[in-house]
């Protein structure tokens, strides 16, 4: 009986996270926070890099076509975020600067700025989804 009580106590005290393996997202975020972009790490015997998808997109050949495409996809992501009411402050500014860089033929700079805007817009959409699922956790009962 004593053992059962102890198991009960341990089970109630144990957060679910501690009995689950670290997810890929957790591992990625941890490595990214520790080492920044461009770092190589291993997860479940496979090798990955700590680059965001948008940063990978920005590594394409710097030319007008690629820059315009990245700016367009970033703008679409920003618009979606705004429609959800979760637009962040900076993507619109980054996109304006990206357009200016594009106009000056600075394609690499334009792609980097667009990637930054697209990343922030994507995360703001993830924030919306998280808020939809979890907003009530902060309310006193």
């Amino acid at each position: 009986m004593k053992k059962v009580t102890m198991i009960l106590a341990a089970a109630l005290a144990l957060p679910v996270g501690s009995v689950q393996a670290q997810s890929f997202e957790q591992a990625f975020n941890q490595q990214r926070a520790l080492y920044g972009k461009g770092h190589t790490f291993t997860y479940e015997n496979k090798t990955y890099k700590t680059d965001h998808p948008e940063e990978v997109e920005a590594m394409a050949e710097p030319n007008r076509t690629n820059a315009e495409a990245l700016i367009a996809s970033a703008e679409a992501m920003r618009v979606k975020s705004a429609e959800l009411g979760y637009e962040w402050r900076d993507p619109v500014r980054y996109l304006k600067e990206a357009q200016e860089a594009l106009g000056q033929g600075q394609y690499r700079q334009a792609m980097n700025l667009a990637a930054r805007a697209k990343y922030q817009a994507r995360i703001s959409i993830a924030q919306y989804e998280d808020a939809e699922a979890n907003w009530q956790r902060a309310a006193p009962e």
Partner: protein
Amino acid sequence: MKTIRKILLGAGLVILSQTGLSAESGFTLETVDPEADRLALQNYYQQRFPGVPLEDYVNGIYAIDPESRKQWDALMEFPPYEFDLEEGEELFNTPFANGKGYADCFDNGGIGIRQKYPYWNREEGTVKTLEQEINECRVNNGEAPLPWKKGDIAKISAYMAFTSRGQPFEIDIPNDDPRALQAYLDGKKFFYAKRGQLNLSCANCHLQGSRVLIRADLPGPMLGHPTHFPVVRSKWGEIGTLHRRYEGCHRDSRSVPLPPQSEAFRKLEYFQTYMSNGLVVNGPGARK
């Protein structure tokens, strides 16, 4: 076998305990209970700041931070909103070009009605705020609407709030119109949902963060928030409306802020003011 049974029992309890933590209570149209929310909020603050009388929460941060209170008491010897109040009264009583005035647009001639705002307008199916109806009054009488955030609209609103001083808020959520309850729930959700690059909700600063330093500032408690608006903020150096503050807070989280009097902000005001039901109107106010 016994050991396996015990492990399975333990694992089952882990899952059950987590399910219990995530059980919904008061967060859907079917379960939300504004009165329970209001009492839970009062209870939260009574536990958080024992000994602070509920009625003192109309004074915001000055109710719960004695040092700030001393400075505020000194400031209030000559309240910085007095000239705005005088101008507000004059504006309120100045007839429009068609000879009518604000008094013609509101119940009781617009005097002593602040405690009923915002309210659910059944015909229009929306939350109406006092500032919104001040501007509607102007437009309906052939005048141009006033800018929402500061200036004359804040002064007129300040005068109207002043005529209600001491009256307890009595925000009503009609139980025969589920749209009103949905508006309240939407406002509640807005208050608790994290936003912006800083990932902050209203609650992060004004519930959990009440009297917790954010750089050099001490955020005020959510309970009693709307009672003292419009306010003269030292930072603004002038009088402004509640929605000006909403816009500023929203921007401070590094969001693109919603405009004043947007539907989402009006619902937020509906929720927040309901939470202050029973507390008295003490606007206009003065804040840091």
